């Protein structure tokens, strides 16, 4: 136990110029709304405004997620899915798919899904999910990546969920009611009109005993259904992507230009909730190859405006040329450095940027990128009392860890 005479840092440091709460709250709100906007536009920017309506007409149960946005949120949930899970649109969109898992969800399945996402591949697996009311149900989960044609990056994942029909051999008891004993949740949802008590009591009993060992196996028909559903979602997405000219495909194509960051790296980087960019020193003019959501909200630019550009667009009147030279020298020497720069946002306003730059290596141990962490000097300390310097170093640490993300495809 810690003695009570200690007081938490948040209070200790009140005099050091922490932002007054209203400003901090406004900032947090702004960050939140930036992410909301990214989620809103995730589909429409790529597949035109018509996509939502088109997807809405599909009868299947499916989700679409965006691995590029931090937290890998759900950006679309079909009507069928919402009916099956008992969630409302607002309760699902913006959240991560983990919310449907619960105490009896098999950790191995969760791990397999995690790996398939990291490795950007298709996966079909049975999974015990939970509805909004807390009841578990077995589904056949079918995941597939959607690639951008222009650079081969994964831009979305489609996750189809087909309820698995419970067959008699799955259960240990209750032979008589077996024909009704479906684990399809439609049975529960649709038979609300005076359905027979035997079915109800069976289902209740059934759910109580439902755990990882007692499970349904998907039939070939269900597997086919999942695959067909995925294909129809994918073909809808492919079709509508042609309207914007930013075409998607379901197979990775080799790209001629910049090697894209892998989706697993993107996901790992997306978890870092601070303003930073990655630049590639091996490409001409050291362009930005990754920009965090917080960088976009700090500077006011959108992602496609900054990717491929050198960071100098942040400079302008009042930016100290001597400091810029120091930074260049450090980069040439492959060293980390910290500096204060006057930078400009897209709207022309300026901010004091406490910049920290550090070289980072990839999994093969070679220098691959520079991470550049920006911090508005008005944000002195965060709510947990860490100094800006420590927070910046934390970002560098997290990026280094993300760089060591491995793929089983990385073997020789």
């Amino acid at each position: 136990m810690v003695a009570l005479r200690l007081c938490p840092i948040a209070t200790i440091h009140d005099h050091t110029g922490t932002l007054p709460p209203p400003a901090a709250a406004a900032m947090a709100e702004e960050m939140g709304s930036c992410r909301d906007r990214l989620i809103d536009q995730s589909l429409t920017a790529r597949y035109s405004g018509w996509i939502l309506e088109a997807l809405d007409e599909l009868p299947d149960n499916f989700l679409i997620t965006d691995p590029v946005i931090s937290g890998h949120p759900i950006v679309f949930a079909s009507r069928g899915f919402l009916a099956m899970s008992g969630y409302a649109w607002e309760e699902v969109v913006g959240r991560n798919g983990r919310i449907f898992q619960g105490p009896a969800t098999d950790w191995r399945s969760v791990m397999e899904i995690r790996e398939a996402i990291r490795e950007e591949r298709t996966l079909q697996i049975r999974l015990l999910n939970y509805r909004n009311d807390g009841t578990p149900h077995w589904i056949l989960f079918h995941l597939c990546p959607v690639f951008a044609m222009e650079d081969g990056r994964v831009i979305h994942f489609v996750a189809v969920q087909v309820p698995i029909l419970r067959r008699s051999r799955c259960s240990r008891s209750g032979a008589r009611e077996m024909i009704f004993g479906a684990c399809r949740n439609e049975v529960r949802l649709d038979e609300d009109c005076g359905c027979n008590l035997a079915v109800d009591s069976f289902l209740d009993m059934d759910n109580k005993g439902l755990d990882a060992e007692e499970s349904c196996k998907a039939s070939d028909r269900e597997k086919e259904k999942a695959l067909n559903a995925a294909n129809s979602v994918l073909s809808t997405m492919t079709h509508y992507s042609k309207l914007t000219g930013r075409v998607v495909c379901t197979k990775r194509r080799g790209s001629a230009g910049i090697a894209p960051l892998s989706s697993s790296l993107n996901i790992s980087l997306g978890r870092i909730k601070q303003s930073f960019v990655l630049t590639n020193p091996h490409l001409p003019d050291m362009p930005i190859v990754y920009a965090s959501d917080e960088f976009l909200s700090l500077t006011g630019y959108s992602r496609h405006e900054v990717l491929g550009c050198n960071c100098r667009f942040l400079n302008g009147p009042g930016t100290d040329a001597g400091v810029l030279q120091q930074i260049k020298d450090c980069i040439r020497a492959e060293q980390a450095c910290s500096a204060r720069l006057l930078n400009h946002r897209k709207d022309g306003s300026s901010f004091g940027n406490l910049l920290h730059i550090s070289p980072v290596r990839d999994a093969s141990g070679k220098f691959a990128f520079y991470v550049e962490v920006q911090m508005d000097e008005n944000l002195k300390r965060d709510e947990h009392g860490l100094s800006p310097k420590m927070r910046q170093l934390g970002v560098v640490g997290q990026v280094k860890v993300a760089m060591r993300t491995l793929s089983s495809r990385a073997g020789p």
Partner: protein
Amino acid sequence: MLTIKRVPTVLSNYQEDATESRGCGRNCLGKCCLPVSKLPLYAFKSDSKPPVSPSDAIEDPPVDFFLNSLLLGQWEDRMNRGLFRYDVTACETKVIPGEQGFIAQLNEGRHLKKRPTEFRVDRVLQPFDPAKFNFTKVGQEEVLFRFEAGGGQKSLFFDSASVDEANPPSVVAINVSPIEYGHVLLIPHVLDCLPQRIDTESFLLALHMAAEAGSPYFRLGYNSLGAFATINHLHFQAYYLSVPFPVEKAPTRKIPIAKGLADGGVKMSLLMNYPVRGLVYEGGNTLKDLADVVANSCIWLQENNIPFNVLISDSGRRIFLFPQCYAEKQALGEVSQELLDTQVNPAVWEISGHMVLKRRKDYEEASEDYAWRVLAEVSLSEERFQEVKAYIFEATGLVEAEVEDMDADENKATYQSTTASATHFSQGCLVLR
């Protein structure tokens, strides 16, 4: 007395001159300096239900704070200060192709410039020896922060905190020979000079650290003496690696428990289809429930002189316990020269599937079969393992239920027992007591 010669891993920059006693004034962790220190303090929240699903932990912002901002930030700071013996991010790493996904790392720097030292391997419990290197000799710059129970409902961080006499400080320090980014040591009650020996309180502390980190990729490990611990001063290790370890993917079979665990809610399973036999503990109504069952198992092992390794996985939700006998086999000359030449020390990380290799040749030629063969040498034989398991049950007051006649379940096909993998598995070993 059984001993083996091996190159000791240097965990601290103060280890080299461990024998000469240096007068203080250099901010060490000893009784002279630590009580007047102003180290940062992370005071974790009081024991509560562990997060029930994998979903709960990750979305909580303070969780992100402990691991990402505090631990990794401080670690990066020490890296900038040049406190490590090498840059671990310059070490090549890869996943070995195959079913299991063993991870190999080429680490040529970890054992450089060290002469092999004699280690006694036939005693799991040895008294603390103040003359040998221990963590009270570590400089405070190697400490990232103190990690202690705060008692409140929320975790708190203090930038600098004084030491309270009633509460012995526990610290998180860097490992100067890291095997991955963020490799740290958790040293419970450092001033108490506890030998490498599990007790329930220290084990719970380690579990709390895994829970606070809240990431499935930040794991803690423990090596007993005789199972490749090099320093006889109580410590756990931890680091971050964002791939699943093979052992975490291995199938398990639940052990039906008739009596003993009813209230705590802890579940026990057997590890299946994995080269090292082990027990898996999970569940528990509180972290303490889980910690107590595992710690009591470890206590029985150490008191009965069986070396073991522990992996704390999945944010403290799953714990793997591996009784082992490699060092003893090595001392008795029963390990093949080919394996000895690789200098792989099968400690907790290797057993979990993260192989740190010292020679480029081994790294480049590493195959799943090779990793399996190395690890199979570590495992107890099936017969001995069953015996040990039975003792653990007895010691922790558990009674295994009669094996119920399960329906012919199609899943069982994957729950293949270790012994069945005859292609991989060479003969296990018997620990002589």
